[in-house]
């Protein structure tokens, strides 16, 4: 026989629950631990810095790397366990909400019909059922921590005991490289892998990882260096690819011998496409992406373009001391071979989306690892400006704070169509490429809407980044973010 409803203390308890209060507590848990994956990414940055041996090497430093790897592994396991536990908390709050609502209905029914002999209404039974589900969900939230040695809400006593429950050794099954090519999705996938999984997938699939926009720069660099090493030592490597591989390896060696941090961001030997960063793209405050024009290839021009990148970096440091900088030589598209083909947009129609995707990847990787948004400037020369034009046509905003157009052969639309808050332009009177809109329907001067950078009449088409002319210093100021756009211009 069922007890009278008014006496059912359990229903009264349910009706008194502060479900919004429980929801706020769960939100607090989510907020407090939601940044654990980015926390781990920063920790692994320290680990890689020690591992590099740049500032510390020897037995003690190797032990430090091992200890940091343990902390990283614990952080990854903890994030996974807390995420599972959090899902149970959310289910608990949902069930508690149902239970409370139905309990209130049942109590209201009892108050309206105090003398009914029909027993408890269905709402009362359902309320108790949802309360039981809430209770089970609360228990499940605790069970989700069992893998970390939490028993009956008692956590391990110290880090050593916690470590016992975290897999550190043994073979790691490399995770499959995702099918998505959306940089933000790639970045999230990468951030969700443990450090051991990240290293494993780099080792097993260096080609795909090195080409994935959205993967952090350090990982792409490691992957592409593996690809490079294999190409250099594999006698089956086609001759032209082997030449490019040697050029890239030589350039990396030369820059590193000079104390420069180098990251190989793209190494598509078959496609003759390379992107090389001078500076750490994962931590730099400022990023400059140099997009060259007609007739540039990795084999013939990587060294000269790296020199341009160094000059831009020097000019930027001159303009703003104390910030960290990475400059990228972006040969991520097949440049037109000749001036004649440079009047056509085919190469830019391929290169534009690749550039837009690459910029999205840089931004997504930084966002996923919470390493701050760098100021990103695209410095495009000649036909490279047409590539930027096409990149801006890709759906979604161009992930750049500023665009610098040097010796542009013509653009479509106006400066604001490039989607960057700041657009600067340099067109020398001595540069015939800028006399006519070969590749678009507009000159970049006048009504185009870009802020003009200083030039001299003696400058030719290849002189914009030469230290003896004034444009380079101005480009450095743009990269550093200290050059102000003219009123009424981008």
């Amino acid at each position, binding site marked *: 026989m069922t007890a009278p409803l008014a006496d059912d203390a359990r229903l009264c308890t349910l009706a008194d629950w502060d479900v919004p209060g429980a929801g706020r*507590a769960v939100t607090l848990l989510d907020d407090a631990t939601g940044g654990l994956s980015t926390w781990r990414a920063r920790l692994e940055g320290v680990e890689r810095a020690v591992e590099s041996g740049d500032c510390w*090497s020897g037995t003690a430093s190797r032990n430090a790397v091992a200890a940091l790897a343990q902390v990283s592994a614990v952080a990854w396991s903890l994030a996974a366990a807390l995420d599972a536990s959090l899902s149970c908390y959310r289910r608990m709050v949902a069930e*508690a909400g149902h239970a409370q609502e139905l309990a209130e209905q049942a109590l209201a029914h009892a108050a309206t019909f105090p003398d009914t002999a029909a027993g408890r209404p269905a709402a009362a039974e359902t309320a108790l059922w949802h309360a039981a589900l809430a*209770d089970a969900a*609360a228990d499940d939230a605790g069970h989700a921590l069992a893998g970390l040695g939490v028993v009956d809400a008692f956590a391990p006593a110290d880090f050593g005991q916690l470590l016992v429950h975290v897999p550190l050794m043994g073979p790691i099954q490399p995770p499959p490289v995702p099918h998505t090519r959306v940089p933000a999705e790639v970045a999230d996938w990468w951030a969700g892998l443990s450090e051991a999984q990240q290293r494993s997938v780099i080792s097993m699939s260096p080609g795909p990882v090195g080409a994935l926009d959205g993967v952090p720069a350090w990982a792409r660099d490691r992957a592409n260096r593996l690809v490079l090493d294999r190409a250099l030592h594999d006698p089956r490597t086609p001759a032209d690819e082997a030449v490019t591989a040697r050029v890239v390896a030589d350039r990396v060696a030369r820059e590193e011998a000079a104390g420069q941090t180098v990251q190989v961001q793209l190494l598509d030997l078959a496609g003759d496409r390379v992107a090389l960063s001078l500076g750490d793209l994962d931590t730099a405050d400022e990023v400059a992406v140099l997009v060259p024009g007609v007739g540039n290839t990795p084999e013939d021009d990587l060294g000269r373009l790296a020199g341009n990148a160094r000059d831009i970096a020097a000019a930027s440091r001159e303009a703003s001391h104390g910030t960290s900088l990475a400059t990228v030589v972006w040969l991520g598209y097949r440049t037109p071979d000749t001036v004649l083909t440079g009047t056509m947009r085919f190469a830019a129609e391929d290169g534009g989306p690749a550039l837009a995707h690459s910029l999205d990847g840089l931004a997504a990787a930084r966002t996923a690892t919470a390493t701050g948004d760098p100021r990103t400037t695209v410095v495009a020369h000649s036909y490279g400006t047409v590539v930027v034009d096409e990149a801006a046509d890709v759906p979604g905003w161009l992930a750049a704070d500023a665009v610098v157009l040097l010796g542009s052969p013509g653009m479509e639309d106006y400066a604001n169509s490039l989607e960057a808050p700041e657009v600067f332009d340099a067109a020398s009177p001595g540069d015939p490429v800028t006399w006519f809109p070969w590749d678009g329907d507009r000159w970049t001067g006048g009504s185009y809407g870009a802020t003009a950078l200083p030039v001299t009449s003696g400058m030719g088409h290849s002189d914009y980044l030469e230290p003896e002319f004034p444009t380079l210093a101005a480009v450095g100021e743009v990269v550093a973010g200290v050059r102000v756009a003219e009123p009424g211009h981008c």
Partner: protein
Amino acid sequence: MSHPLPDGSFLLVPDGVTALADELAALAAELAGDVERIRAAAASFPDALSGDEGWAAAATATSWARLCDLLSSRTSALSGVLTSAVAAYQAEDAALAGSFAPGRHPR
């Protein structure tokens, strides 16, 4: 320090290692702040959900806090090890430098 590696070489750049130690200390401090927020959440569950549900939710959240606290403490300890390493290398260097002073014999 005074125990060379088998290959006879090691390196320590004080400013570089100190910067890494500072980053670890910052990470530990951030996580310690999160631990306090988790504890606050744990304390509010029994008030919100009286009964077994609230108690179980609070107990589990307390475990969350403990686990994060272990991670924070270990990170803080490693930061201290790096800081100590820098101090030890510098102290050893200073001692060696002093031993070359006139009238003293190198150790």
